[in-house]
Each structure stands twice: as structure tokens, then as C-alpha cells.
């Protein structure tokens, strides 16, 4: 057993025991990593331009599949969530949106976990879902 008994990645990733803020934290990481992976892939994908039309078209064939479209829809979702939640974090991390510090009354409800923040998280998730649907609509010309 490790000396520090750190919870480890499983503890970090397990969002179930705490509130929606912990879920948001976890989604932020996953979407960030996902977007970075997509971004690297996208750079590689577009580099096929330089090898001419045939190379470009065969690359397109690889990505213009059902799986490719679902993946792209996911990327849109990740992008929207990461942006929405990211803006929330930037505002919060600058110290705005908690009201004032004050003597707390039992039972304690931390004002950093307030409705404004929770709402922003839910809205970010909602917007991500809408954007994914819209994206799929565009890709399938609905």
C-alpha cells in the first residue's frame, strides 16, 4: 500500500460521491483531453491536403462515416461544454459570483457551491446536448 494512501486516479475521477461541481470538474478534464486528441487528429487530417486531391478524398472517406459523424458530434458537445464551463470557471476563479464572505450559520451551505454555479453547469451540459443535435442535423442535412 502506498505510504500516502492517496485516493489515486480512481478517486479523482469518481464523481459520484460529491455534488454536480465534482462532475463538472471531471467532465472538464475529459472534454479537455478529448478536444486535444481531436485537435491533433484534425491537424493530421488537414495535412493530407498537401498530398493532393486523392489523398484528401481518401481521408474524407475515412472520416465521413457514421462513427466519424458521431465522433464529430461528440467533439461539438465537448467543445460547447468545455467553453461554457470554462467561462464559468474563469469568472468564479477571479472571485466573482459567490456573494460576500460572512459568518456561516449551521447547517452550513457553502456559498461557493451556489445555485448560480450549479445552473451554469447544467446550462453548459444542456447547450452541449443541443449543439450535438444541431451538429448531427447539419452533417445529415436534416
Amino acid at each position, binding site marked *: 500500500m502506498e505510504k500516502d494512501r492517496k485516493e489515486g486516479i480512481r478517486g*479523482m475521477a469518481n464523481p459520484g460521491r*460529491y455534488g454536480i461541481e465534482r462532475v463538472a470538474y471531471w467532465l472538464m478534464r475529459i472534454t479537455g483531453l478529448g478536444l486535444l486528441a481531436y485537435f491533433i487528429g484534425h491537424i493530421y487530417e488537414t495535412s493530407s491536403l498537401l498530398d493532393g486531391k486523392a489523398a484528401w478524398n481518401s481521408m474524407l472517406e475515412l472520416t465521413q462515416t457514421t462513427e466519424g459523424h458521431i465522433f464529430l458530434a461528440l467533439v461539438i458537445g465537448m467543445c460547447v461544454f468545455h467553453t461554457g464551463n470554462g467561462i464559468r470557471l474563469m469568472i468564479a476563479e477571479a*472571485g466573482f459570483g459567490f456573494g460576500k*464572505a460572512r459568518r456561516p450559520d449551521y447547517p*452550513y451551505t457553502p456559498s*461557493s*457551491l451556489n445555485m448560480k454555479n450549479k445552473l451554469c453547469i447544467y446550462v453548459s451540459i444542456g447547450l452541449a446536448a443541443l449543439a450535438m443535435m444541431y451538429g448531427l442535423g447539419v452533417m445529415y442535412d436534416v
Partner: protein
Amino acid sequence: MAAIFPVSSQEKHEKTKPSAKSITLRISKFNPGKDHAPTFLEFPVSYEKWTTVLDAILEVKNYHDHSIGVRYSCRQAMCGSCGMIINGKPKLACFTKISELNSNVVTVEPMNNFPLIRDLVVGFERMFSTHKRIKPYIVREDSEISSGTKEFLQSPEDVEKYIQFAGCIKCGLCNSACPTMATDSTFIGPQALAQAYRYIADNRDQGKDKRLRIIDERHGIWGCHFAGSCSQVCPKGVDPAMGIQLLRGYLLGYKK
């Protein structure tokens, strides 16, 4: 363990009387000096509506298994000794009533993200040293009085600005819940950061720049990603997450 006899056979101890309500208490036992892996011991415990998890653990320690290692003292959520994981979440044992857990099984384990000493007892050396690192005292030249000195004036509103963060009892629950501390044992942690804010927000203090410099490093304040778990588990309403975000306002230049 030797058999334990009652003091006299007629006088049965009151506390061992079976009551209508009872739960199974599962206690994590692990002595790194002797054992290879943690095991759980299970004990039936009867309870009343005011029985706390600490009461239950001590009942077991006093009458069933003397060897249970547990740290406790004030039993009124002021000393911060009895932080542990109760049914999966970091809580103070003395501040958690069995009746409010709504569970027939209560599992207690040592806090995560701290080195284990034995059973439910963890080592606090690192947390105490990070607390020391952020200079948790009033920094100013005239902080020692001479005869005839009166107080620095401070309005009730000035006190409100930091009093929330002065409630920290150093129980370590926030550090145990923190997702960054789950993998990064060099992270300064919500406990120390909240205390850094407590002193910076105090209008008697002049140590802001020194403290900001200390926390503005690789495993410093930016290791916080505002998952809010620290504030969720804090038994005293300290809200470390808020303190940390307010600190960042200074570092990002929004606040002077």
C-alpha cells in the same frame, strides 16, 4: 484478546442492553507495522437518535475490541480529531449521527490522502507543515504590544470578511475530499489555502505579498480546479473553495 468479564455478573452494563434499533458497524483495521492488507471487522451496535458514529466506535472499542485505533477528543466538533471516511464520504465521527445516515450498515475507514498510522488514525505532519508554510499569523512590525497599547480598531464588518475562514479546525476532511490531493501529495491543499486567505482578508495583516508568492507556484493554488468537494465536506462551514477563488482574484490582478 483475553476474554472480558463484566465487573460482577449481576450488574450488566447498561450500554450493552439491546435497543430496538441497531446497525452493523464495519471498522477498517489495518496496522501497517504488522498486517499486509486492511480487513473489516463487523459489530452490531444499537443506537438512539442522538448516538454519533464516534459513540458507536467507542462502544465497540470499550466493550468488544480494545485494539481499535481511533483519534478522538472533544466529541463536539471543535477539536478536529475524528475525521474519517464514513460510508464513503469524509466526515467527523462525532458530528455524524447514525440516525442521519439512513443505512443499516455504517462503514468507517481512515481518511484518504493522508499516510496511515493505524486503523482509523492518519498522520497529519504534512498538513501541519503546509499550514506553517503559508505564514498563518499577522505579519506586521508592531504585532507585539508595549504597555499602554490598545487594540487595532476593526469594525464588525471587517471581522465578517475573514471570520468564516477562521473557523478551520484542521480536521483534514477538505484535504481528504480534494480531487487534486487524490493524486498530488505535493499540492498545498484547501486547508492551507483557506488559511492564507483568512490572514490576507484580515485588515490587521500586511503579509499579503509574501503569502501570494508562496502559494503561486507549481503545486500551489493553481492545483485547485474548483470541484468544490472541500467545501462540501467542511464540518464548520469554512468554504475553502470560496477562499481559494477569492485568493486568485489577487493573483490575476482583479483585486488589489
